[in-house]
């Protein structure tokens, strides 16, 4: 589908994220805010969310920082009326920021499909507005509340995939624990003390405790044997 044929539908695409977080997630890549022209408008869902959570609008993003020394995070993204046809590029454009997106408005886009993995990793994604005919990522079971009004679909409150008893509850392999990883996604990360490929390794090998006595005893035995055995040996 060509870009530009999106006028048929009211166009809003909104994302909202609860941004409570850790300074380690730095927004170094604000490219996504410039993905399409224009800025977040005050009256839109993202605009309201942004002002209520004391954010700052830049391009299509709503940014906030918890204290002045920390860098800013994207807490909301308004991609409405952006002529998006596929929602997979999105992630690529926002690799640095995606974990922080809390609120996302994707309405008013001629989206035909959302790739399966498009929202993988969006742990904090809490509110989405999509065109009506697009289902919430991960299906209705992944959201607390899904409703359709005014030609848009609202996905609210991401559910924790790991604690679900429903069809998608998957057990992680041995030595790993389940952690939410975006709508309907989960991540198996190594349990305490386990690490490495498939979490097969436990603890750190005590190199010094093993090899120091070994080296010392090798030296002593060699010396002892040389003194008692080979010292007076004559070549054959």
């Amino acid at each position, binding site marked *: 589908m060509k870009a530009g044929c999106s006028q048929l539908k009211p166009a809003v695409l909104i994302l909202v994220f609860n941004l409570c977080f850790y300074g380690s997630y730095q927004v170094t890549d604000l490219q996504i805010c410039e993905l399409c022209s224009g800025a977040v408008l005050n009256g839109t869902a993202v605009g309201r969310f942004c002002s209520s959570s004391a954010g700052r609008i830049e391009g299509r993003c709503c940014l906030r920082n918890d204290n002045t020394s920390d860098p800013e995070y994207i807490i909301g993204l308004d991609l409405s009326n952006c002529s998006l046809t596929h929602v997979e590029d999105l992630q690529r454009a926002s690799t640095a920021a995606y974990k922080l997106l809390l609120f996302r408005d994707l309405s008013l886009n001629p989206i035909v499909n959302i790739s399966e993995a498009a929202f993988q990793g969006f742990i904090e994604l809490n509110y989405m507005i999509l065109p009506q005919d697009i289902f919430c990522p991960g299906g209705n079971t992944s959201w607390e509340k899904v409703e359709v009004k005014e030609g848009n679909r609202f996905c609210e409150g991401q559910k924790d995939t790991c604690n679900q008893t429903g069809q998608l509850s998957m057990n992680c*392999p041995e030595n790993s624990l389940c952690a939410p990883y975006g709508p309907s*996604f989960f991540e198996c990360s190594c349990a305490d003390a386990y690490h490495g490929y*498939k979490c097969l390794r*436990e*603890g750190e*090998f005590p190199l010094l405790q093993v090899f120091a006595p070994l080296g010392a005893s090798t030296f002593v035995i*060699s010396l002892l*044997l040389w003194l008692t055995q*080979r010292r007076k040996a004559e070549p*054959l």
Partner: protein
Amino acid sequence: MPPSCCGCLSQYTHHHLVAFLLTFFSYVLLHASRKTFSNVKVSISAQWTPTFTNDSAAAFSPGKTWEGNHLFADKEQATLFLGALDTIFLFSYAVGLYFSGVIGDRVNLRYVLCVGLCGSAAVEFVFGTLTEWLKIYNVYLYCGLWVLNGLLQSAVWPCVVAVMGNWFGKAGRGFVFGLWSACASVGNILGAFLASSVLKYGYEYAFLVTSVVQFAGGVVVFFGLLTSPKEVGLSLEAETGLSPVKTDTDSHRPLMSDEEEEDAAEVEVYDRHYHSIQEPEDPLAEAPLPVTFCQAFCLPGVLPYSLAYACLKLVNYSFFFWLPFYLTNNFGWKEADSDRLSVWYDVGGILGGTIQGLISDLMGKRSPVLALSLVLAMASLVGYSHSPNDQVINAALLTTTGFFIGGPSNMISSAISADLGRQDALRGSQKALATVTGIVDGTGSIGAAAGQYLVSLIESKLGWIQVFYFFIAMTAGSIVFITPLLHKEVREMWRERQALRRQL
């Protein structure tokens, strides 16, 4: 030199003890690292493959942790490859044995032994630890390294047997070698222990620990091993002190009718401990020329024993490799139980080797003991193949089978190899021990390698009971190969008895 206390052992010095222990532990360490490889197979194949998921379910994320390695698509393929590595190893080990024995007789045995131990330790380190640290997973690299490992490891056995043969003469050889050949089984136990205690840190540490320990063993051997009593001025035949049951006629008619005792007589046995090789004694012993490979092959007894050992090692190693698998499959016992139970086969082998060695020492002949044991082995195989589903009875049958199969197998590979390498026909060229040991064990290993393949083939096509018939046929085959020797030795015994009777 403080001689050890108990009567018949009084001829041994502390040098004998150290040589015994050093050669024993050299092979223990070698076998321990072999066992390590078979014990970490599960971890390695996990490392080489992505996580198994149902087709319907999504793959686990993050992909790097769960799907990162694709050397093999699944566990079955990885297992096949690991089996192929075993076969590659056995073949290169067999080929290497033919060469390393020849080299061992020409170069200082100590150097060859050290190169074998330290070299194979280094290769194992690269194979198991370095490739994992650098994340290089390559099938061809693994195959190449394992071929090299087989070649390097093959240097060890002929050397340790040759050193033992130098230190321990014919008279007590059967018993001493029987005891000594427990080294392989002790190595298995040590390897299993080492592997299981560090496996949780990752399989690369199992390789790291066993290879470093093996390397350390090589260093100790380099500084401590005397390859021959001559190096400290002891007579080579220090203990021709003769076993108590031998009559006078017997004492001059050694087991393989070899030169040892006659030689010893020339150099005056009785001041043996302090006699120096510097004294001109036998001009030929001054500069012993090593035999060539072909000469060694044509020595009397080498070919028959090699072929007999090929049949026997096939059966013996099939038990070593397949027993836990058979027990788990056939009786449905847990893997840990099967592993534990299969130790009884080793126990039987140690007992068999020692006791049969002792009997053969007392008799003054080896092949009658061997033949009798092999006949009983066939019977015990029949018995074992009909073992009831009971772990105690199975363990008892297993020990019996190990006694009658492992015993002769240990005896041929150590005591008899040493006999053959120092026999009469070698007069003037004493350095044949390592070469002959290499030939016997090399031929045996070819049999073992072929057996690996044949057992899996027969098992999949015809079932386990046919595998046992195959074992019985192979045991019968080894009896056939030693029949000429048996015939000769029994006739000799008969003649000796006649002569003795006439004397009386």
